[in-house]
């Protein structure tokens, strides 16, 4: 789309934004992919509509405050990126735009403190764990609390498990086949410590040594996608210092959001001195399912123990795996590699579950509608188990599936594989 974006004045991120706007031909193929367009049916809450709004703001023809409500409603799910034949890097545009515009935003004191609390608690597992425990005590009070506080409480699990610190080095079992670095993630350590435990067990069983490098922290995605660019840059640089890509076969994440965040580092640092380092780093980043699937495809994956009875698994595509990273086949292939397991497709599978990082906390109403729709679609498959590869989706889906009265277990893909290895499936 033709534009007069003052690229020179905006620097590296200006180039990223102008390139994305250039690429849009306004064809509308993105409309059916967009969750907010599906709910609201208006152009401003669609991907191409938001591109027009961002273009107008960047050109100076529209005040930021007029465009902001529509841009804030974007989940960043990037389903539009998958749907776009013209190759518009929409995710890069909205991320860069949020970073550029956040310093100019005027927010109420309440909104500012809520953002501050989220951005402080998310990357700090211990703090998050404490907050989650406090939240549990507050749960019975939910009906009388303001809506802004009710949303996060609704999402808390029935019980917050104890933290399980992971060993710095997990040796390979049997013959060592590889050596990887692992990003342990933030909120997921507090909400679902078994994800990491299962990941380490499965990798070790397959002859992979796993190192958890010191000094690593939050991937920065939450800060980046909410526009807290300075905060995000600190986290990005800390991880670039912590992980030396030359030391490992791969840098793994088992949370789709974090993995996508790590793969975004070159875009974040576009035009800056660390760009080269970020490229070398991102080239090694893989989702856990991608990595294990390469073993499977090479015939090197340790065969899982057959399930004790035929099991159907509804696999939920996390947006940050399917759309942001393009990983769809790998997790399905891993699940199918377990004898006795068959994978079911979820109707409207490409539509976001509404979790989307901090979206649940910032746009609870739309997030709730999407969560309910997703749970209904998943339950329509009548699968025995529900699998996903992202802590955000996991929490959201579990909460909405329970609300719809179903006890169906919601598990990480790797947990299912782990259970199979342990003969517990």
């Amino acid at each position, binding site marked *: *789309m*033709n*534009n*007069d974006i003052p690229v020179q004045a905006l620097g590296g991120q200006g180039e990223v934004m102008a390139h994305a706007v*250039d*690429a*849009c*031909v*306004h*064809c*509308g*193929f993105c*409309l*059916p992919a967009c969750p907010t367009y599906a709910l609201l*049916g*208006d*152009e*401003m809450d669609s991907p191409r*509509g938001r591109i*027009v*709004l961002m273009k*107008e703001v960047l050109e100076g*023809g*529209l*005040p930021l*405050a*007029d*465009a902001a409500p*529509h841009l804030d409603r974007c989940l960043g799910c990037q389903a539009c990126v998958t749907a*776009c*034949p*013209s*190759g518009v890097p929409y995710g890069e545009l909205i991320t860069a735009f949020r970073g550029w515009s956040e310093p100019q935003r005027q927010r109420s004191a309440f909104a500012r403190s809520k953002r501050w609390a989220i951005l402080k608690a998310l990357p700090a597992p211990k703090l998050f764990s404490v907050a989650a425990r406090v939240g549990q005590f507050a749960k019975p009070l939910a009906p009388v609390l303001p809506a802004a506080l009710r949303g996060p409480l609704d999402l808390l699990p029935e019980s917050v498990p104890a933290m399980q610190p992971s060993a710095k080095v997990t040796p390979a079992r049997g013959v060592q086949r590889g050596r990887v670095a692992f990003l342990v993630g933030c909120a997921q350590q507090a909400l679902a410590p078994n994800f990491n435990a299962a990941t380490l067990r499965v990798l070790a069983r397959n002859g992979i040594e796993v190192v958890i490098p010191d000094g690593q922290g939050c991937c920065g995605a939450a800060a980046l996608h909410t526009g807290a660019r300075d905060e995000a840059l600190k986290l990005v640089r800390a991880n670039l210092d912590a992980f030396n890509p030359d030391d490992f076969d791969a840098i793994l994440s088992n949370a789709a959001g974090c993995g996508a965040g790590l793969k975004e580092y070159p875009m974040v640092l576009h035009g800056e001195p660390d760009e080269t380092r970020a490229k070398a780093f991102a080239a090694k980043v893989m989702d856990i399912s991608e990595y294990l699937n390469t073993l499977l495809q090479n015939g090197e994956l340790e065969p899982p123990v057959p399930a004790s009875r035929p099991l159907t698994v509804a696999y939920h595509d996390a947006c940050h795996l399917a759309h942001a990273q393009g990983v769809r086949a790998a997790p399905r292939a891993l699940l199918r590699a377990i004898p006795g397991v068959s994978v079911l497709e979820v109707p409207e599978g490409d539509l976001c579950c509404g979790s989307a990082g901090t979206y649940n906390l910032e746009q609870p109403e739309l997030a709730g509608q999407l969560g309910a729709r997703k749970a209904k679609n998943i339950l329509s498959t009548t699968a025995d188990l529900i699998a996903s590869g992202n802590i955000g989706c996991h929490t959201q889906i579990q909460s909405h599936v329970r609300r719809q009265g179903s006890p169906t277990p919601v598990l990480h893909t790797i947990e299912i594989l782990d259970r199979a290895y342990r003969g517990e499936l």
Partner: protein
Amino acid sequence: MSTEKLALTTNSSARKPASAGGASNALAADLTRALGPRKVLSNLSERLNYRYDAIQFGATPLAVVLPESTEDVVAAVRASRAAGVPIVGRGAASGLSGGAAPLEPGLVISFTRMTRLTIHPERREATAQAGVVTLAVTEAAKPHGLIYPPDPASFRTSTIGGNLAENAGGPMCFKYGVSGDYVRALEFVDADGEVHRLTRDVFDLAGLLIGSEGTLGLITEATLRLIPPPKFTRTLMAHFPEVGACAEAVSRAIAAGAVPSKLEFMDRACTNAVEDYLHLGLPRDAEAVLLVDTDGEDLDTVQDELRLVEDACVASGGTVRRAATDDEGAQLWRARRSVSPALGRIRPQRMNEDIVVPRSALPDVVREIRALGDASPFRLVQFGHIGDGNLHPNILFDPRTEDAHAVHDLAHRIALVAIRHGGVLSGEHGIGSMKRDFMTDAVDPATMQALRGVKRALDPSGALNPGKILPAEEVMVDG
């Protein structure tokens, strides 16, 4: 500024007014009183987005209405008539001729929330409000063993109302016809806000509304004919070292008696743009690729027909690959559907032609157009529903570095090739504002007067989608 210049320069419409939001005019305020705030958009951030269709230019409307019922449309039309401003109807705005883009500030009625759809399997009919997405009709009909055949490339996005306004086609049109062929009845709101329900007996007024691009009335609902899907479908892809050879193969196959359900062509640039997007292993070096489906109730007949096409392709110098599985066939069709937007990877903007020529003239026409493109400084690509003789030559350009007038001039020369070979200007995308100026080449003066008479009869004050289809009347000034 002339229409064509407007059409080719994104930011050429008058500089947008700055606004802090809020209802900025009496029309928006009236509409909000009549319809409530949820159905009326009046902030600049909301209105800006309703300037465009896929041609990316237009005037910012004064207000936008998102009706949920025919009554809402009536109320919106009455309010805008009272305010004396023009009305433009809009579906998903995926059109390529500027049909849904307002040329002057007024009211835009966007039908995307009018999505009621009912299937009547016993009558093999669907009743769809204007905003129903095209694909949704077939998906709802499938459990009843029925389909809705019209399948424009944008069918996941585009709406029934928009399809009917443009009389959209699609790959299936060769054997099964275009959108208008499936309409049993129409409901529309006229320029005065009166509701009419049309069938196709007596005067075929429904036929007049179909393809009228919102210039004669606003289609609010349609009763559509459904058919049982063919039992068997087989797909082949052929590629050719030269574009004319591909057209020859098509003529030869049809002359041999084949009636494929789909016959689609894309040239080398199209194949490569799609390959960049989908990575399907399409033949990047071929000058032309032909995609063909044959279908029917009897597998032997379907296979025989596919063989006729295969023989014709080989005889014209093509290389043939049959799709081994349904899935492979589906992938190839996904490739074809993505051609148009995938061209955005090559240049940010394009002038899109939609000519239809007699099939016997196809080899000459594609070669002549190829030659025009080669002699110009622009990237020119061709694809289309070649079985129908419906071609989409596209001029790809960058408005920042390339001359919009030269683009328009090349488009005009392409249109003249079609007319010289006995063809027409539009098969399925409409005339809109993009090809309006070529109408005087294509339509004789007496016919033009008849068209103007129809427009005056149904929309005497010219309020409905002004500036589309019909060129401005010459005003004679005595000397």
